[in-house]
């Protein structure tokens, strides 16, 4: 890259940064998005439970609470956005369980309050109605607060689609580029990155886990956020029949939930409450699994440790509890003009659509000229999803391109054709293929398909197999060629 001039620089290719990029591309703005990883959504976006419009925000909604209002405004925008971008969106509905009368009363009060503020989606269910919806629910639950509007999605796929659509509509989207320093001047900013220098007039700081550090580079850090971490375990698809709604039970403090939820692909997620942790320490351990299982069994008793096929730790930057449960950082810096900080905490995915619009408004107020882009196309085609085609469609597809007849990932039924599509779309790593196609996310966790995917990546990218990485950088999978260590190669 070395030297680049742009009007608006968006730092961060997670769900918020890419949503802003797409929103900006509705206008004739010269915008550039940079992301430090080699692919999109690999920070907080990829490590959460994929729930859209969490109940907490409904029940505690007040329009004067910033974050709460952004989630509220995003609600009607989420489904159309997913449809335009061909990203899965599934209204599974949410059940907030209670186990006694005092729990029930608490929910009744919250429901009445929410109704008075315009949220009328909730219903109170008694024991029998609850069991009709979820026969496997814990016997101890005496009822639940039910919200059928709650949905699930695939945040990484959404982020990739947002980035792709923004690029389609003229945004310069660059990966593998990390911000190293920012200097503020009269006319704009000089941003030093790992790939060269960028001069811009406006900065949108959506750097996720590094949002405060990026702001600090230019003294625009007039906010405090803390790293909090949660743990998510993925359960085998064969137990997916156990529950069909997102189910949780809220103890006293926010962020202390027990939770179990379906995913859009038919797995189940269980998780632990989020806690303060050392930034970037995403190592998992046994205690987390124990806690997650114990918590989830309070809701659905029939799950067990052997159903876990994988797990991960998820981080996000959160505002101090004391500052307000429903606050966030979406504002122009009070110290540096034309520098907009964007940090939601959670639910980042749910708040993305309205946050993107608000950021554009903030930029406009800072002097960004917004002229409509008449060529803006909100639609983006997704990669073929072989598993969701009819038999006839599968037949036709394989007949037209035999690569769709070659199933590479057995566990998730992902074909070579889809993997090639993903690579053409920008996947250049094993994880890149995984997040776009699900190859490697099944119960064998890429045991069978990883050698084939590595071969296909090498072939399509025209590079040697040993250069293929898991997630960019130094994460090569194969360090040596045969006989290199024992001696024998020229």
């Amino acid at each position, binding site marked *: 890259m070395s030297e680049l001039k742009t009007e608006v620089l968006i730092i961060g290719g997670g769900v918020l940064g890419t949503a802003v990029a797409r929103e900006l591309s509705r206008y004739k703005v010269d915008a550039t998005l940079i992301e430090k990883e080699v692919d999109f959504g690999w920070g907080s976006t990829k490590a959460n439970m994929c729930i859209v419009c969490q109940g907490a925000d409904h029940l505690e909604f007040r329009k004067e609470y910033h974050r709460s209002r952004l989630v509220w405004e995003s609600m009607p925008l989420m489904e159309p956005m997913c449809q335009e971008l061909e990203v899965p969106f599934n209204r599974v509905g949410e059940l907030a369980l209670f186990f006694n009368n005092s729990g029930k009363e608490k929910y009744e009060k919250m429901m009445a309050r929410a109704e008075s503020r315009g949220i009328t989606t909730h219903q109170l269910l008694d024991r029998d109605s609850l069991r009709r919806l979820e026969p496997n629910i814990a016997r101890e639950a005496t009822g639940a607060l039910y919200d059928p509007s709650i949905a699930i999605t695939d945040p990484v796929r959404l982020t990739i689609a947002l980035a792709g659509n923004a690029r389609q509509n003229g945004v310069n989207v660059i990966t593998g580029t990390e911000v190293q320093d920012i200097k503020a001047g009269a006319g704009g900013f000089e941003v030093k990155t790992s790939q060269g220098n960028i001069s811009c007039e406006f900065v949108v700081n959506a750097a996720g886990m590094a949002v405060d550090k990026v702001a600090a580079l230019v003294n625009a850090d007039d906010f405090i956020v803390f790293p909090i971490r949660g743990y998510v375990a993925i359960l085998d698809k*064969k137990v997916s029949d156990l529950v069909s709604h997102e189910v949780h039970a809220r103890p006293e403090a926010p962020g202390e939930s027990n939770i179990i939820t379906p995913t859009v692909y038919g797995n189940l997620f269980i998780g632990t409450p989020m806690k303060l942790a050392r930034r970037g320490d995403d*190592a*998992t*351990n046994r205690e987390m699994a124990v806690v997650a299982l114990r918590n989830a069994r309070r809701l659905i008793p029939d799950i067990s440790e052997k159903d876990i096929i994988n797990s991960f730790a998820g981080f996000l930057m959160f505002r101090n509890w004391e500052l307000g449960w429903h606050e966030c950082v979406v504002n122009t810096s009070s110290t540096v003009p034309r520098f907009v900080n964007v940090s939601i905490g959670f639910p980042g995915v749910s708040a993305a659509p309205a946050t993107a619009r608000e950021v554009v408004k903030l930029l406009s107020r800072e002097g960004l000229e917004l002229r409509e882009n008449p060529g803006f196309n909100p639609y983006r085609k997704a990669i073929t999803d072989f598993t969701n085609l009819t038999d006839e469609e599968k037949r036709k597809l394989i007949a037209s391109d035999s690569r769709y007849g070659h199933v590479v990932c057995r566990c998730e039924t992902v074909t070579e054709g889809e993997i090639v599509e993903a690579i053409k779309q920008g996947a250049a790593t094993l994880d890149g293929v995984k997040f776009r196609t699900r190859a490697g996310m099944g119960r064998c966790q890429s*045991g069978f398909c990883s050698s084939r995917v590595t071969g296909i990546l090498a072939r399509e990218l025209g590079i040697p197999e040993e250069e293929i990485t898991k997630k960019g950088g130094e994460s090569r999978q*194969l360090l040596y060629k045969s006989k290199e260590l024992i001696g024998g190669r020229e």
Partner: protein
Amino acid sequence: MKLQDVDVAVIGGGPAGIAAAIKARETGAQNVVILERAEKMGGLLYQCIHNGFGLFYFNEDLTGPEYAHRFVEKAMDTGVKGLPETMVTGISPERQITAASKGEGYLTFRPASIVLAMGCREKSRGALGIPGTRPAGIFTAGTAQRFVNVEGFIPGKRIVILGSGDIGMIMARRLTLEGAEVAAVVEILPYIGGLIRNEVQCLHDFDIPLLLEHTITRIHGEQRIEAVTVARVDDGKRPIASTERRIECDTLLLSAGLIPENELSLMAGVKLDTVTGGPTVDETRQTSISGIFAGGNVVHVHDLVDNVSWESELAGESAARFAMGGKGAQGKIQLKAGRNIRYIVPQTISGQNKVTLYMRVNDLEEGVRLKIGNIMSKGLRVVKPSEMLKVELTPEQLEKLKEGTSEITVDCERRERK
């Protein structure tokens, strides 16, 4: 061969599937087809370049590829049709198969009978729940074996192996002979998980440290693995924190468990045994669904490929008979796992015909007596969970069964010392 005329469809073209298909043809089935997902028949045998195969079946010491070749040749000679690069995506309880094939397109057909021979998968890092970060450089032993023996890559130069299963020990030797250093094989039990032969020839021969009663408590490294922390475990298999130490490495291989791959079996509605993880079968290897048979590692994880072949021949023969209108064995005598018996395959027998029982014990014991109900008993010097036991019951022995017996308990009892 037209797909609508298929008599026996075999799912999986490894040693189990090929043996079943050949026997099906030899029994008289006309149209026998094997559906195999990999690029060629033979399954994982082609990446098992070591020897030790066929000592009982062929009375020769063969390597995996040689053993596979014998069967693949014979399959071609007996007129079995093989469909490689063909992945079965579904089986209905009515035996309707759907499959995606690179060469043949999208297939849907209903054969007269099915043999399930899908083998097993390895337990992944995620399934094992090993604590720590998620860097590159972590492989299951079988996946690493494919890279090393087929694709031409060595994953790293300083290896730690978790689990002393056979594949892990064999890879320890293989990687040493490719110039890598195997820093340790870490095993949670007080004895190895695989065969003694491999402990001697793979670990002792090369002075590779075997850490028994140890486990990995943490994986380190962000992009690529840098080290693991190991610790000794107590009687309850819990890590003892004060014994933790760090072993530097750039690669971690996992050889800590094989799971029969029964996703298709579940789709077909076949009943699974929760202990073996595979379908419950009778002595003909018929599953709970009439016309669907199973053999090999998909039923229970074997140690010797020779047994895989023999067991699968049963399945193939029975599938062929079924396709030709025959009846399976009558009568259902349940085999119950008694003292120190983990499981018995087949789970039910007729009691009329000679039958071979395969079983595994739960714990290592010395000086035992295996008792099959009141039919027969056998003294054994040592029994180990990692070594399958095989007992043949003759019709004469079965005659000892009382009329109307519905259950036989198999016990592994301690022999009395005099």
